[in-house]
């Protein structure tokens, strides 16, 4: 019986190469897989992003799907642990047999299973990380969001160093993400004369106490502090710096760029800078195109979607656009062609437009620099930026 399965699977393979139908695709359904953190330290991102993406797919499905196909997502919880992620991907690729993975969270996770999934001809769509190492090298089956952490930080640090700051400090998490931030600062500082990286300190994601680090920075006398942090360490780290009377500018990446950080009670994050892929959108001032999403999200989960929700929704939106472009005859090739055909796709939140191409799978290279003012992220400006 099982053997028979293998034979039919083999036949299916043959069929696939003939371009009839890919794994995870039937006449009325297309199956996507997401392995993300629904619990554990990164659940803040994983839960919101996957919930927001589901809202986009629900909208499409209610209107009859894409070319008659309903979009279904199999959601796996990797708890931000690589071994569990590898197991989850094994399930998605080999048991659920998904058509493509999408919105997979975490830098090490995406790096771990990329080879395996490409070998199985399963596209990797819009991983929930803007790490440099996940974006490069490009691959025919890989499509990413946009500007990497590396580019975000180089852009921001370049901007500050060009406007008079002379010494930088870095506080970063002991992780691939933190290492990328440190690298970016080091590289950028090297390109300017008369400036230096004076101090750097790392911390564990679970650390809660930053007085020591900040006292060290105060002693080092830096006038620019770069945070390779996520949400909680951004808030408490920044609050500690200000409490100790440190007046240096503090800048964080996309990972610490969330509406909740800006709106933290007591205004303790006032003045914090962030470099990110796009602007933060607030539902009360969102463009009309985003209203439906805002309302649904709020009705379902009782709060406004944060930036991670916006990203998740955007990712889903791009996938839908790609599927539509791919046409009724859905194969891996047609999907990738469809995605590459996305051009000047206006973002639902009215921030930026998205374009991909046959030799551009990286998405937008816009970096936005924002600052917290009166409890909200306010965009100070944006630029197309890509480091060599």
């Amino acid at each position, binding site marked *: 019986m*099982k*053997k028979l*399965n*293998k034979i039919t*699977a083999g036949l299916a393979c043959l069929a696939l190469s003939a371009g009839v139908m890919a794994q995870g695709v039937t006449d009325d359904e297309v199956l996507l897989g997401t392995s993300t953190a*629904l*619990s*554990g330290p990164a*659940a803040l991102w*994983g*839960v919101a992003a996957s919930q927001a993406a589901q809202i986009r797919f629900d909208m499409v499905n209610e209107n009859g799907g894409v070319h008659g196909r309903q979009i279904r997502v*199999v*959601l*796996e*919880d990797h*708890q931000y*642990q*690589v*071994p*569990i992620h*590898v*197991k*989850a991907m*094994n*399930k998605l*690729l*080999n*048991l*659920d047999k998904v058509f493509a993975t999408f919105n997979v969270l975490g*830098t*090490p996770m995406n*790096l*771990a*299973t990329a*080879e*395996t999934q490409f070998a199985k001809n399963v596209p990797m769509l819009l991983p929930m990380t803007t790490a440099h*190492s996940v974006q490069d090298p490009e691959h025919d089956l890989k499509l990413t969001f946009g500007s990497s952490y590396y580019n975000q930080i180089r852009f921001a640090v370049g901007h500050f160093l060009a406007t008079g700051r002379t010494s930088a400090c870095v506080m970063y998490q*002991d*992780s*691939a993400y*933190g*290492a*990328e931030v440190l*690298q970016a600062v080091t590289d950028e500082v090297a390109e300017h004369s008369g400036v230096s990286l004076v101090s750097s300190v*790392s911390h564990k994601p679970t650390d809660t106490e930053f007085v020591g680090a900040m006292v060290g920075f105060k002693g080092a006398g830096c006038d620019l502090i770069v945070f390779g942090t996520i949400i909680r360490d951004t808030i408490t780290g920044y609050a500690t710096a200000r409490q100790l009377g440190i007046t240096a500018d503090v800048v964080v990446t996309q990972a610490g760029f969330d509406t909740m950080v800006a709106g933290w009670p007591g205004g303790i994050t006032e003045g914090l800078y962030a470099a990110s892929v796009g602007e933060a959108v607030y539902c009360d001032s969102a463009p009309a195109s985003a209203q439906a999403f805002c309302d649904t999200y709020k009705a379902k989960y009782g709060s406004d979607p944060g930036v991670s929700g916006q990203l998740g929704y955007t990712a889903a939106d791009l996938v839908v656009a790609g599927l539509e472009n791919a046409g009724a005859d859905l194969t891996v090739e047609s999907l990738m062609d469809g995605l590459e055909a996305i051009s000047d796709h206006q973002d639902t939140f009215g921030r930026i437009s998205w374009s991909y191409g046959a030799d551009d799978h990286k998405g937008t290279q816009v970096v936005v620099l924002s600052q917290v003012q009166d409890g909200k992220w306010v965009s100070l400006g944006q630029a197309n930026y890509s480091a060599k």
Partner: protein
Amino acid sequence: MRILFKTNYKQDLNLAKHSGHRFWYGLLILVLLAAPLILDGYYIGEATRVLIFAMAGLGLMVVTGFTGQVSLGHAAFLLIGAYTNAWFLAQGFSSFIALPMAALLSMIGGLLVAIPAARMSGIYLAIATLVFAIIVEDVAGHLSSITGGNRGMMVDVPMLFGYQIWQSWELYLFVLIILVAATLIVLNILRSPLGRAMIAVRDSEVSSQALGVNPMKIKVFAFTVSAAITGLAGAFLAHYMLFLTPQIFGILLSIQLLLMIVLGGLGTVHGVFFGAVLIGVLETGISIAKDALPSSIGGLPGIEPLVFGVILVSVIAFEPTGIYSRWVKIRSYMEFFPIYRRKSFKRQRVYLKTERLK
């Protein structure tokens, strides 16, 4: 019930005590070897993971189950094994070099911990090993020239005789063969003086000393062997994940190993496999079952660890000595079938006495 007539002391030395043993274990190995023919990719992947964890658990069992030294830091040896293996493969060596080196370096790591650890016991040892693992993780994060630091490191596929082991069933068989070999070595240790000395040290350190056993030496030996086996498992874990960062080898991984062997049943080789299979089946089962549930339940974020925790706690609350002892009960139920008495395994009231008198 089987009655054994022994005609020769040698019978007690055999691993398989009677023809039934030979038959069933032989069959088990055959089935495991044939599994790739029967099962499809997903299940082979799952089985590979279970085998790798079983190997790591086997290592931990040597030191914790047989020698009574708690370790909450075995992820450190997985880390050392994984990185060593990956580094040697990256330098172009074959697995023939990389695997033994992984075992050897973990062994050296084990030796380093064991010498101070042999003086500690109980909770102090548990925490000391836990802390050792945290420090090793930290060091791996800082040695970026070798480990790639926190940015991580890709792992090449295993190489044997210039042949790349790339297919999932090939890796499965590779792991299986090494695991069987490691199990045989552990069984050999257990039936020889060293193994008895380990158990002696575990059950009563003073009287083992009075019998001429050097507890320090035995503990160090157990730790070293344990580290070597766990290091091998780490090497395979690297192949399973294909990518390494130090954070993978955190506390949670150490805890999972301990969880596995306690759940399986401490102090028996069977326990290792029961534990590995149980945890594997549990995780796989929960993850498949949640798709079958309505999304209002199955889709709840965090449902998987919750269910896992609840099952874990229930198992321990009802069977504190692990699944293996449940199996023993079931087996004796079948052997004594009509006259079996339920009460004979009823849990009596037990009372705690301070262990502060050592």
